[in-house]
């Protein structure tokens, strides 16, 4: 594992958290009910908090003077290395909770490994705090998928469509590239093939409880980790980054 790969692995964790946190924060003021509005905002803040810790650590590893704000606000979509799943638009509430359920199941297992086993003590410390948050994110999203799937015929159909659409973005979570392989061998990151089994067990159990059909394995979108994103990310980043890019010395 090279220093650049070590940096990339931490940066990717931060990018997933930041992009999904930014996506979820767009629900603030638009949630289906007040209580859910607060829940989604809480989850968004959890993720943005994780991103801040990870970017600060990445900045230390890189040692090029780019702080957390520089990493968040002054990189283009080509430099972001998040999974394609987390940048997908919020859609309707069912789309959002299915995206959250798919990602949280993955993130929970990934951070459980990091909290217990990773070779980097700083990463382990961040993960130990994040695991508790991610456990709640998973519970919350899974309960919603079950309620909507096992709800009315309309909610069932809508959330089945969400599952069918977003399923093609889940394969990328378990496709290792050079960074993933090197970091797994070095004991920094988990082996993605090992995570895939437990992810599938959890997600299938949730979908079955929700009376939803599990999509067949097939072709999967890929490229996020290499900076090749869907068109949605650059629009989201433009909105997120406009203020510090227009007024680089702004403080808030």
């Amino acid at each position: 594992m090279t220093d650049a790969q070590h940096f990339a692995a931490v940066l990717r964790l931060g990018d997933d958290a930041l992009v999904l946190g930014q996506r979820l924060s767009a629900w603030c003021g638009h949630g289906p009910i007040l209580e859910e509005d607060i829940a989604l905002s809480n989850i968004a803040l959890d993720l943005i908090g994780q991103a801040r810790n990870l970017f600060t650590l990445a900045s230390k590893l890189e040692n090029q003077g780019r702080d957390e704000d520089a990493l968040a606000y002054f990189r283009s979509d080509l430099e972001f290395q998040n999974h394609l799943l987390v940048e997908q638009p919020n859609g309707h509430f069912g789309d959002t909770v299915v995206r959250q359920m798919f990602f949280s199941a993955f993130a929970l297992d990934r951070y459980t490994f990091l909290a217990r086993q990773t070779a980097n003590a700083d990463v382990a410390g961040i993960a130990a705090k994040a695991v508790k948050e991610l456990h709640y994110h998973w519970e919350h999203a899974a309960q919603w998928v079950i309620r909507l799937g096992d709800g009315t015929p309309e909610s069932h159909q809508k959330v089945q469509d969400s599952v069918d659409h977003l399923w093609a973005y889940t394969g990328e979570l378990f496709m290792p590239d050079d960074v993933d392989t090197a970091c797994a061998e070095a004991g920094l990151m988990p082996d993605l093939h090992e995570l895939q089994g437990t992810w599938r067990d959890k997600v299938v159990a949730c979908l079955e409880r929700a009376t939803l059909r599990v999509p067949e394995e097939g072709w999967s979108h890929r490229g996020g980790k290499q900076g090749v994103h869907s068109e949605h990310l650059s629009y989201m980043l433009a909105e997120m980054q406009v203020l510090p890019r227009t007024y680089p010395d702004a403080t808030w």
Partner: protein
Amino acid sequence: MSESKQEWPLWEVFIRSRQGLGHKHAGSLHAADAQMAMQNARDVYTRRQEGVSIWVVPAEAITASSPDDKDVLFDPANDKVYRHPTFYKLPDEVNNM
């Protein structure tokens, strides 16, 4: 959401604070079932470290005294000061009173 039967039931939320011995009424919220009520209570009422334990109770399960009965229920206690334990000196060893 126009028909009232489509609205989620109301739940009352009780939180036990870090220092507190008993659960105190924190407020109410809407939720479809107990599990959702618990998650919502956690998100709405404990986001600033307010609590270490949560109770959620369906609001319809609570029987409340009527304001009209206030005089009958509570006035008779007004002139019975001997029921207050104010005539005893409390030993220092007794905490949490």
